């Protein structure tokens, strides 16, 4: 491991120079000749029949080139999930009914934005409003307005059930009866948005020959191609989705969005390029946010803190269409049960349609909500039993080699090290004890410390399931890598280049990357399933291995040596012990072309997680394998509570994480810090406020994201459990989204430690704190 030159190193991002100089082209920066501007007309009602749409006046506006409504579409639905159990349920343009404020009804392409706006204002839509429902518990009632028919396989007499996940193991009733302590609580989370700085934007350019070129701010071009081709009713081969830089996504840019579909269809209608860029207000008011969960949690433990049983009932509000709502109730099961051994479980989760905008994955995808519940309650249990927060976590924490009930194995698991090292680093127990005894004191400012624990999967089987990579050697001995992976800021292109560099001893700078283009690059799993470093990384390593094998073969022939005696060094191959017997990569490429009938040396690599598993686990029953590597972490928050104002400050955040092997520690740190900051926003600052389906704060003045004043002191402890060896598969883990979770719970536990107030819902507002302290009513 010590001889690693490129992986495990703090190497600068490959796209850095383009980004600091303003040369990096994002989708919105594209300007094509003759390009039109597209705008979307949205429903003002949360629930209504569309009686008639009259576009005649709008069509007469000079400069309007096309107007589309549902009648111009094929009426093909799409969904984040499209399975036999959960078929697609949303039209790209509303057909005869709208189900949320902001639902897309029509779109216009015009020569400039003002003309497009004017045309939108002249489209006459006649609606007949219908009764609407916004709260999931109300929407479940048998007498609630029906948004969609309840899922046919759900037996209970609930209305509006989009989907249900149900699973169990052991016997919870028996275990509760045998428990020394049984505790039952309800935890609630709130609505937050992703906050990507780059707006949602697409450019579509249809060539008269039948080719549809699309640039769109996304988390993976292949899923966009699939969904665009399907809804437009055209072959995959006619749709090309290409790379532009992506200005942040955080889960919010995975699904097919109506603006992408409309830009494409408008371009097909006009044979001109069309750009549609959502305004920030549209993004806040009509696009997809995260998913608050209602979590009812009953836990039984032995006196010594050993978990015996947990029973969960989780209610999710995915809005007017399924979106990823039925994925969250599946994932919530996993995030609830990954970190600790749990012999008995009963879990049921419901996704309930409401007349709210559709919801999407959001960094952590259910984990922050679930860890907040489990970790808060674990601290309550510890206190009740006279245990400390560290020992109860260590007692239950999973250890290396443990099998999960679904058949997965945690392999090398650094959870106990994460817990112990972060506790030691912060002098957790000493502070925890001192704060508790001071909690009743009369000082205005009180300190608290708290811990949370979390785990996250690293890649699963959802379309496109796998990654492939091609590496081409060039005549001068340099390399070009073709990868479908998209860099959304996480550094995909950089870490994949580091892997190639390591395997082939070529400087990272000399590796050209062609990325994220459905036409020229092979398929990639996408930047939303936390499998980039593992799945795309191993595909890259395999491709590089093939190149190395070819280089060694040709070098062995040319140097009349055994391939096993050859060494790669700085774009050359030499014979071990005889460094003068050496050929450059340039010479080897030339030799290969001459002697191997024109082969300039290319390599290809492929990787799929859980190679023997036929498909993803069941969203309904959780049966089937989920992932083959799990990351673990413990996070500690130190807070200061102002008991006069109720304001809580996060003064220190410590993250101890087992991400396997960090390919680039500098990028890993960036992920950790960004997640701590996002969790800080989650805990204290951010909430999308809605009333009857309308967004009350659709801008960054009224929706408060952390700014430089809210910087958190973020410290990192790497618990490295995996290694990287040249020429061998490696098992690295997730680091890009799991770390928004435990820190949220840690903050709640730290607030309790400071002032003795247990928080059952996010965000942790001054109002809640003061009310709990009895200072306001």
């Amino acid at each position, binding site marked *: 491991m010590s001889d690693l030159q490129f992986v495990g190193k703090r190497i600068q991002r490959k*796209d850095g120079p383009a980004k600091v100089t*303003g040369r990096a082209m994002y989708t919105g920066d594209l300007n094509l000749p003759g390009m039109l501007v597209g705008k979307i007309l949205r429903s003002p009602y949360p629930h209504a029949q569309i009686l008639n749409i009259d576009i005649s006046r709008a069509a007469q506006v000079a400069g309007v080139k096309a107007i589309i409504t549902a009648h111009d579409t094929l009426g093909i639905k799409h969904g984040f999930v499209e399975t036999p159990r959960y078929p697609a349920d949303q039209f790209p343009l509303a057909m005869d009914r709208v189900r949320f404020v902001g639902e897309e009804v029509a779109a216009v392409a015009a020569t400039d934005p003002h003309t497009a706006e004017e045309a939108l204002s002249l489209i006459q839509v006649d609606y007949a409003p219908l009764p609407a429902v916004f709260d999931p518990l109300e929407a479940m009632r048998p007498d609630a307005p029906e948004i969609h028919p309840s899922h046919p396989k759900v037996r209970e007499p609930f209305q509006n059930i989009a989907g249900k996940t149900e699973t169990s193991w052991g016997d919870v009733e028996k275990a509760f009866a045998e428990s020394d302590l049984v505790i039952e609580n309800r935890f609630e989370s709130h609505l937050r948005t992703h906050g*990507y700085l780059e707006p949602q934007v697409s450019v579509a350019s249809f060539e008269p020959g039948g080719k549809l070129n699309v640039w769109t701010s996304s988390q993976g071009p292949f899923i966009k191609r699939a969904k665009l081709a399907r809804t437009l009713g055209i072959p995959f081969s006619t749709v090309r989705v290409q790379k532009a830089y992506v200005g942040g996504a955080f889960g919010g840019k995975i699904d097919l969005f109506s603006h992408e579909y409309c830009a494409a269809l408008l371009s097909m209608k006009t044979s001109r390029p069309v750009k549609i860029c959502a305004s920030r207000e549209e993004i806040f008011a009509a696009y997809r946010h995260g998913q608050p969960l209602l979590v009812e949690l009953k836990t039984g433990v032995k006196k010594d803190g050993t978990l015996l049983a947990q029973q969960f009932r989780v209610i999710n509000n995915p809005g007017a269409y399924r979106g990823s709502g039925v994925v969250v109730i599946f994932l919530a099961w996993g995030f609830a049960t990954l970190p600790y051994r749990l012999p008995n479980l009963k879990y049921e989760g419901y996704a309930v349609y409401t007349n709210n905008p559709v919801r999407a994955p959001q960094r952590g995808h259910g984990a922050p909500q679930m860890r907040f519940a489990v970790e808060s309650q674990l601290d309550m249990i510890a206190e009740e039993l006279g245990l400390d927060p560290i020992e109860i976590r260590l007692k239950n924490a999973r250890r290396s080699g443990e099998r999960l009930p679904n058949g997965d194995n945690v392999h090398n698991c650094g959870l106990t090290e994460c817990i112990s090292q972060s506790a030691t680093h912060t002098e957790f127990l000493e502070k925890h004890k001192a704060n508790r005894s001071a909690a009743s004191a009369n000082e205005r400012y009180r300190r608290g410390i708290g811990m949370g624990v979390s785990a996250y999967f690293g890649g699963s089987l959802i379309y496109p399931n796998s990654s492939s990579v091609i590496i081409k050697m060039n005549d001068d001995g340099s390399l070009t890598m073709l990868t479908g992976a998209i860099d959304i800021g996480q550094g995909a292109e950089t870490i994949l280049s580091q892997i190639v560099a390591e395997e082939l001893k070529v400087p990272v700078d000399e590796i050209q990357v062609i990325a994220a283009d459905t036409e020229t690059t092979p398929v990639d799993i996408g930047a939303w399933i936390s499998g980039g470093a593992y799945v795309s990384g191993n595909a890259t390593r395999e491709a590089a291995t093939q190149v190395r094998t070819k280089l060694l073969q040709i070098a062995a022939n040319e140097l009349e040596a055994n391939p096993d005696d050859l060494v790669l060094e700085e774009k050359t191959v030499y014979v071990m012990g005889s460094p003068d017997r050496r050929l450059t990569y340039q010479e080897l490429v030339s030799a290969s072309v001459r002697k191997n009938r024109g082969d300039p040396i290319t390599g290809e690599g492929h990787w799929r997680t859980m190679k023997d598993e036929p498909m993803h686990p069941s969203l309904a029953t959780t049966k089937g394998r989920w992932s083959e590597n799990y990351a673990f972490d413990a996070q500690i928050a130190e807070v200061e509570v102002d008991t006069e104002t109720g304001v809580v400050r996060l003064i220190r955040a410590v993250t101890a994480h087992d991400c396997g092997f960090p390919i680039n520690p500098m990028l890993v740190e*960036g992920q950790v810090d960004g997640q701590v900051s996002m969790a800080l926003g989650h805990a204290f600052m951010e909430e999308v406020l809605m009333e009857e389906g309308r967004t009350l704060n659709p801008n960054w003045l009224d929706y408060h994201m952390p700014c430089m004043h809210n910087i958190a002191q973020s410290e990192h402890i790497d618990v490295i459990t995996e290694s990287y060896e040249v020429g061998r598969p490696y098992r690295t883990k997730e680091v890009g989204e799991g770390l928004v979770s435990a820190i949220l719970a840690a903050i709640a536990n730290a607030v309790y430690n400071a002032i003795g107030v247990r928080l059952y819902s996010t965000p942790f507002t001054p109002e809640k704190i003061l009310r709990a302290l009895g200072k306001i009513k």
Partner: protein
Amino acid sequence: MKTLIELSVNGEKYELGIEPQLTLLEVLRDHLGLTGTKEGCGTGECGSCTVLADGKPILSCLALAADCEGVPITTIEGLAQGDSLTTVQQAFLDTGAVQCGFCTPGMVLSAAALLEEFPSPTDPQIKKAFEGNLCRCTGYNKIMEAIRQAACNCGQQNVQEKDK
């Protein structure tokens, strides 16, 4: 009704016939092709559109282009000379202060203006200078580190220049 204006951007003079309601951001991006200046919100909340007007950071989405006549404007494209990056740009790369990069042009320009005014800024001065620049990726930690490093390196550069 279009008006004729003369803008000075990155040391170049441009004569433009524009509608008077156009913002500086629109003119930079749509008329001059300077797309390094980004629009994150269009309402002055995120700082992605920051440019320098006479060396001071302004929000180009809130400034009318016509009001910028006679004021030298610097955009992100005006900082680096060819391949040679400024100290601030280099510090952003060295410290890992760039992720998605959408806020980066505004951040780099805010940093350049800050260090011009305060070559060795205190942390409160840094926070004050950047309070209008949102970043969702980094949590600001590495941006803070980049500015401290750039301040340190700018200082060294000044000393070296004095020695010459």
